[in-house]
């Protein structure tokens, strides 16, 4: 099947072209069939590749054509099919397909239906290119392409000024990261003469540990990951990105695009393992981000914002996995997170639809009666993300915590704390939305309904995976067959830390005990507070404690950026366009012009009107010309 692997990105691209050119003439049914069908077809091919990869590990490069060539630098348009890219392709096309199906129901009333499917398909195309590229440059095409799709879809309802501002913010913050990425690419060209994985990685192995060049490359690449995967300090675009339709939040801003940074670092594991300094930076930044975002998520009242900060926090976990060289644990968490976070977002979408567009959880409550399927699947997602065994999140988070335990006690403890906070804000969300009394308007209450099948079926499928997805990476105490570890070992073999068996058994039992002893009481507390007691519909700011306000206002990071960066830059630009441009530069030019005018007015006095002078000048000129001609003829 590797021979037709180029079809995998091409099919969604064709879907984009047909739906894009056909919009708005194509009717919604056809647009939906093309949009979903093209991704399903890709998924089918990926599945056959996956089955093949179970037999023997894949490592296949497909060179399509020479894209850019200048002197010694060549960029081949090449795709790479190996176990890592196959597992990412499974996530992208599999979860992607479910979200496409969900969108049929979610967007059916929208006038931009066909356009929405065109954009979704374009996103799948770029995302596949990102995970399939055989060099950093091809990965960069996908990398920037998904950024574009993110922009287009965040601002999908483009008449709203705030939404288009959020879209701009997302694209620009991503581009800050992309500058780091592209500089890393230049550096690779300068050092290795290429950015192809199969040239860079073997050559890099020759470098000594913590070589400054490798540190620079890995740090610059990581800057790209910070932007794309919304880590500190470039995370503020992701919560704003919730302006997009909910399927977009599920697909792009939870399951796939934002994990691109994790994939990229994992893909470059050979580079990173030579640069422990960078790994340490990643670990620390990941931990801080995980904790910081979880603290903000605790007090948010917008259902999607809670999930958005939760995503930032979970991405932090993934980076800790990478930073502690547990690359397979990072990818494992990408996978389980894709299941349960897509599930949670789609569930949130179902709730928002039922609530006639309401997103404030303080106006919800008691929805489990009206939305039984949504409520039940949302609960599974909540259990999974909170790390309750045996749901998916437990195993992947367990792998990360175990890795961090061996790395640093402080990191480990901070992550444990974050896990507790995760359970707290998720169960707060769950109980506030689905339990207690309904707090919305009368109109909303009348309109409450369970979503149609195109929405509930993806929820059920994802809930199934969120429940059992953890068994792909079953740790050692449960049978010692960590499937994902073995599956990815061809890619990570030289680097995945070999864990001491006895220690790891001990720490794993400890974590199981921990989730029962600490997280279950947290759940119970949340139940007491948000399900049994009456939740306030509005908060009065004055009565809030300081820490609560800090969290509610997201630690004022947006304001900090606005006053610290945007406003000063804008003032500088204003100074440039008025003072420097008009007064200094143009002023100097005009001044020179005036001086010239003055001089010429003096010079004009040569024009005396004296015929004799003119004749003299004429003759002098002629003599000069004659001398010149004689010089040419070599008379002298």
């Amino acid at each position, binding site marked *: 099947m590797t021979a037709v692997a180029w079809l995998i990105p091409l099919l969604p691209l064709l879907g984009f072209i047909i739906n894009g050119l056909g919009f708005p003439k194509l009717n919604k049914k056809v647009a939906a069939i093309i949009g979903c069908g093209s991704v399903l077809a890709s998924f089918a091919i990926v599945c056959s590749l996956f089955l093949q990869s179970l037999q023997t590990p894949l490592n296949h490069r497909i060179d399509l054509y020479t894209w850019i060539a*200048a002197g010694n630098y060549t960029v081949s348009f090449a795709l790479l099919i190996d176990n890592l890219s196959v597992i990412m392709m499974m996530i992208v096309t599999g979860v992607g397909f479910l979200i496409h199906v969900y969108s049929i129901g979610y967007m059916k009333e929208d006038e931009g239906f066909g356009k929405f499917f065109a954009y979704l398909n374009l996103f799948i195309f770029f995302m596949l290119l990102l995970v399939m590229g055989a060099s950093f440059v091809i990965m960069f095409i996908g990398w920037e392409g998904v950024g574009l799709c993110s922009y287009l879809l965040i601002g999908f309802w483009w008449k709203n000024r705030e939404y288009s501002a959020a*879209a701009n913010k997302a694209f620009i913050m991503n581009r800050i990261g992309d500058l780091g990425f592209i500089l890393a690419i230049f550096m690779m*060209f300068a050092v290795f003469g290429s950015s192809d994985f199969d040239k860079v990685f073997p050559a890099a192995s020759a470098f000594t540990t913590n070589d400054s060049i490798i540190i620079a490359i890995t740090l610059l690449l990581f800057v790209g990951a910070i932007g794309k995967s919304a880590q500190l300090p470039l995370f503020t675009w992701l919560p704003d990105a919730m302006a997009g339709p909910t399927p977009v939040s599920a697909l792009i801003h939870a399951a796939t695009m934002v994990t691109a940074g994790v994939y990229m670092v994992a893909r470059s594991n050979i580079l990173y393992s030579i640069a422990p300094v960078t790994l340490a930076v990643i670990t620390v930044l990941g931990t801080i981000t995980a904790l910081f975002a979880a603290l903000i998520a605790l007090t948010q009242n917008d259902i999607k914002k809670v999930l958005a900060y939760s995503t930032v926090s979970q991405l932090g976990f993934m980076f800790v996995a990478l930073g502690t060289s547990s690359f397979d644990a990072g990818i494992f968490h990408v996978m389980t997170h894709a299941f349960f976070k897509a599930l949670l977002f789609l569930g949130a979408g179902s709730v928002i639809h039922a609530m006639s567009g309401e997103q404030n959880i303080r106006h919800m409550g008691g929805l489990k009666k009206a939305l039984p399927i949504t409520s039940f699947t949302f609960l599974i997602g909540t259990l999974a993300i909170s790390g309750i065994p045996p749901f998916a999140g437990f195993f992947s988070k367990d792998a990360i915590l175990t890795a961090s335990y061996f790395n640093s006690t402080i990191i480990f403890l901070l992550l444990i704390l974050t896990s507790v906070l995760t359970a707290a804000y998720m169960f707060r969300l769950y109980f506030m939305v689905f339990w207690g009394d309904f707090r919305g308007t009368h109109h909303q209450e009348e309109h409450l309904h369970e979503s149609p099948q195109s929405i509930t079926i993806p929820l059920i499928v994802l809930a199934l995976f969120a429940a059992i997805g953890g068994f792909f990476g079953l740790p050692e105490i449960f049978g010692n067959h960590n499937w994902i570890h073995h599956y990815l070992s061809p890619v990570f073999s030289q680097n995945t830390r070999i864990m001491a068996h006895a220690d790891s058994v001990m720490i794993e039992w400890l974590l199981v005990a921990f989730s029962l002893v600490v997280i279950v009481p947290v759940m119970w507390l949340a139940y007491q507070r948000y399900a049994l007691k009456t939740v306030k519909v509005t908060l009065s700011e004055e009565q809030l404690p300081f820490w609560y306000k800090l969290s509610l206002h997201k630690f004022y990071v947006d304001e900090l950026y606005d006053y610290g960066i945007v406003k000063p830059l804008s003032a500088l630009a204003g100074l440039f*366009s008025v003072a420097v441009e008009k007064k200094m530069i143009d002023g100097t030019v005009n001044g020179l012009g005036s001086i010239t005018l003055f001089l010429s007015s003096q010079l004009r006095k040569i024009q005396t009107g004296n015929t004799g002078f003119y004749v003299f000048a004429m003759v002098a000129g002629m003599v000069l010309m004659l001398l010149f001609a004689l010089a040419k003829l*070599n008379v002298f």
Partner: protein
Amino acid sequence: MIAITLLLLPVIFAIILLLAPAASSRRIALIGSIISFSITAFAYSQYLQEDFTKLNFDVSWASAFGIRFNIGMDGISLILVLLTALLYPVIIASTSRTVISNPKAFYSLMMLMQLGLMGVFMAKDAFLFYVFYELTLIPVYFICAVWGGDRSIPITLKFFIYTLAGSLLMLIAIIYLYFKTPGSHTFDIQAFYQLTLTPVEQGWIFWAFFLAFAVKIPIFPFHSWQPDTYTVSPMAGTMLLAGLMLKMGIYGLIRFILPIVPLGLEDWVDFAMVLCIIGIVYASLIAWQQQDLKRLIAYSSIAHVGLIAAGVLAANTAGLQGAIIQMFNHGINVVALFFMIDIIENRYGTRWMDELGGIAGQMKKLGVLFMIVMLGSIGLPLTNGFVGEFLLLMGMYVFNPWAAAFAGLTLILGAVYMFRLYRNVFLGEVKDHKMTTSDVAGWEGFILIPLCAIVIVIGIFPSILLNVSEQPVQQLLQFMNDHKSGVSGL
């Protein structure tokens, strides 16, 4: 024969235009430009078949002074000739909407301008180069001054004097080089490449050429004529200036500075490079503040050409290849952008950002087309702009990593000011609800759709252009390096 035909055609059509009735002027000019384009396309095919004989033309002209009428095309020239021939029908067609007073004169001047541009890009003789270089100034001056908006006469006069003063320096440098050629002197550019000049001489000549071209391009801080001139000129004039004429300056940098004064470049490149980089950031920040769409694109153009010039100064394969393909891309993108702004101004009666909004709802096709060109302009991968920026920045990286890092800010700032424009003009609610507007139709689509197609096709298959200039670029760099080692061996 092709080369001389490309020069004669505009002259012939200029004469026809003067004789034919005024009502048919635009059609005649359009036919002329399309014939030129067809011939250029033929030249491209000949070049691909490596048949160079038809591309050159060489006769003695003023033999006493060693001036030959020597024109021809290598890959670098061909790409710029192709750009000129491609944009000319577009620019002429774009004038359809506006009523032009005295169309005979207007289109004849356009034809003369084409003669000058083609001449500059094809000249192999330095004197000829200078003549054509100055020749372009006259028609474009009249086009901008006579058919321009408010205050167009003082503003274009400033532009005229400024660039004329610049090229005077170039003339002096050319004459100096002429007297340096051995035996009976010659203006042949190839002969200039053989000269051995002392580092001090090279420094002076570098500055003479650099200033001349820096004004034309324009490079910061020699740019102050540009925003005003672009803004007051009629749209066709702006397109000529931004799409084509400034390329003469960059082309001059490539042809004269790199191979003739490599040591002068080496001594001063840091200084010149810093100017280019300041210009990129400075102009981008100013573009971010603009309300007038035309002026915004004018400033963005300063940033873009600053990057191109920096790539040339880096003087390596990636930088030069990037500069050449980006000259082509910039021409396509900037003309398409100006054209679309013209459409907006025509429909809504304004090109002020805060008076516009929500156009994407009323003109859906324009919204999409503008998006495509904008993506090319900000250098998104798989558009033409990415290939150019990627190679330019890579060339700068090889020169000095920090240069690439600072110039790379254009990736961020470009997105900042273009997305601001798109958001304010195309998104949101329509400002004036009563206004009903027709979308892009007929001939407008006929112009814009091919331009957008080029944005994407070059993005996916850049080798269409890169292959053409690869060999001459290598040759030029070889010349430069041989020359450098030869001189320093003295």
